[in-house]
């Protein structure tokens, strides 16, 4: 694929790209459950296509699912009918446990195949940039070990955290390679578990592995961490990501000054407080305020701080897009 850069997508236009992180609300349009979309690639593609046809965003991602890679390496996953799947128990207590997971090739997993198929269909049928989500290495290590255990192990068993993150990295690289082959233009690495560690620990246990994944990706790499990530911004800039997708608690005014001008800042309308609970007027107001603050910065993509919940009112998504297009 040609070496397209995220910044080039932004600078060729007058107005910022408008790309809400939606996927789940597509289930409203296909009258289906999240669970159905996670197992049926044709249905998930139709949910995504319905969102594209209705809202005409400037880029689109498939449904965010932080349990795909975890399930594929053999961790037990719980699938609520209308909620995000979650890893039920964490099997890795020591290095030996990790060895047992290493026998699996995740590309043989049924749900990994589902997502690869969704990407292939998006690539063949949609004329806007297509993005894929993959889990981040520290977050996958957290699903292997349990978040509390992982957090403590960063201090008292760093060797295990490194081993888990390295294995996670190899797993994720295998998946991203297949996603790019399936047509992904953009790979968004989701690393939410890293919010709770210090910048120093981030570099050690997440950043260096994220960088390794990014170096292997032949598509536009974006790093997404939700929640309050103010303390991690400069460490995130060092990962080689072309874009940072950040959440509502982060001050974009301040952050846009801190990041390099060829790195794109993506966000950060509050997905719950604004997108779910506000009226369309309230959404428009929030978008206008953000656009005003970002005026003059070409390295900005208007988005939501995190994935939109399934129940997000469709009128609010429409208001988001409309306000993003009429920025004056």
């Amino acid at each position, binding site marked *: 694929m040609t070496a397209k850069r995220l910044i080039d997508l932004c600078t060729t236009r007058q107005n910022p790209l408008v790309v809400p992180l939606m996927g789940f609300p597509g289930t409203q349009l296909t009258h289906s459950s999240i669970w159905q979309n996670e197992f049926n690639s044709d249905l998930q593609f139709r949910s995504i296509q319905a969102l594209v046809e209705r809202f005409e965003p400037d880029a689109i991602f498939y449904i965010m699912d932080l349990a795909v890679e975890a399930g594929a390496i053999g961790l037990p996953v719980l699938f609520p009918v*209308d909620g995000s799947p979650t*890893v*039920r128990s964490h099997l890795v207590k020591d290095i030996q446990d990790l060895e047992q997971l290493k026998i699996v090739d995740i590309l043989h997993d049924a749900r990994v195949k589902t997502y690869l198929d969704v990407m292939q269909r998006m690539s063949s049928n949609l004329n806007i940039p297509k993005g894929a989500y993959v889990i981040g290495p520290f977050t996958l290590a957290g699903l292997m070990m349990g978040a*509390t255990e992982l957090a403590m192990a960063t201090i*008292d068993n760093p060797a295990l955290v490194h081993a888990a993150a390295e294995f996670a990295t190899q797993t994720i690289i295998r998946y991203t390679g297949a996603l790019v082959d399936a047509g992904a233009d953009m790979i968004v690495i989701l690393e939410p578990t890293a919010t*709770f560690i210090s910048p120093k620990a981030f570099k050690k246990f997440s950043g260096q592995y994220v960088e390794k994944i990014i170096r292997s990706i032949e598509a536009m790499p974006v790093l997404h961490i939700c929640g309050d990530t103010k303390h991690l911004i400069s460490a995130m800039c060092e990962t080689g990501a072309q874009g940072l997708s950040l959440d509502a608690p982060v001050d974009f005014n301040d952050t846009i000054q801190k990041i390099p001008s060829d790195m794109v800042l993506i966000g950060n309308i509050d997905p719950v407080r604004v997108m779910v609970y506000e009226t369309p007027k309230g959404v428009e107001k929030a978008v206008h305020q953000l656009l005003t603050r970002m005026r003059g910065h070409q390295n900005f993509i208007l988005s939501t701080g995190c994935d939109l919940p399934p129940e997000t009112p469709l009128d609010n998504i429409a208001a988001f897009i409309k306000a993003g297009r009429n920025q004056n």
Partner: protein
Amino acid sequence: MEQPLQEIYQGILDGDQGMVMDGVNQALAQNIQPADILNKAMIEAMGQVGKLFEEGEYFVPEMLIAARAMQAGLGILKPLLVEADVKSAGKVVAGTVKGDLHDIGKNLVTMMLEGAAFEIIDLGTDVSPEKFVEAVRETGAQIVAMSALLTTTMPSMKDTIEALKAAGLRQNVKIMVGGAPLTPEYAHEIGADGFAPDASRAVATAKQLLAS
């Protein structure tokens, strides 16, 4: 501060379980009262941990290992506190709500509350409204603390509050809620008494609720 108490205090700040247990044993050998060990060294240290967290000096891992070290010391001290009839700051039933398996936020809150001398009944994760009701009835807890990380499981907090009402227990307990997607407005809307944005401030919220 006496030397063993200093050791406990420092051991908690460093997350060093061995140092804390040594300190507790030494303090007891020097006939320092269990209540003094708890109040002067442990609660004091956990307060400092909370402060360092709020200041951005400590992060979740540092807080967790500090709390773990405190619990190691508390393990030795607990039977003696019971013997000496030292009262807890209050009894708290805590859990992550139904459908939600995320435990780190709930763990941090219970550990910090324990570090402030609260007695914790930890119901774990995926806790149904019925389980909360049953625990309140059985333990006579003064506070129910609920956690949720997913927007899809937040409504279960309201269901639990309704279940406590239906069981006639609502007026007996104060309810506090927290979790990444929650807001003070949401807490108010579902009829909770308190909201805390993080584990350190959950301690202050719990104290306020019992004082009100």
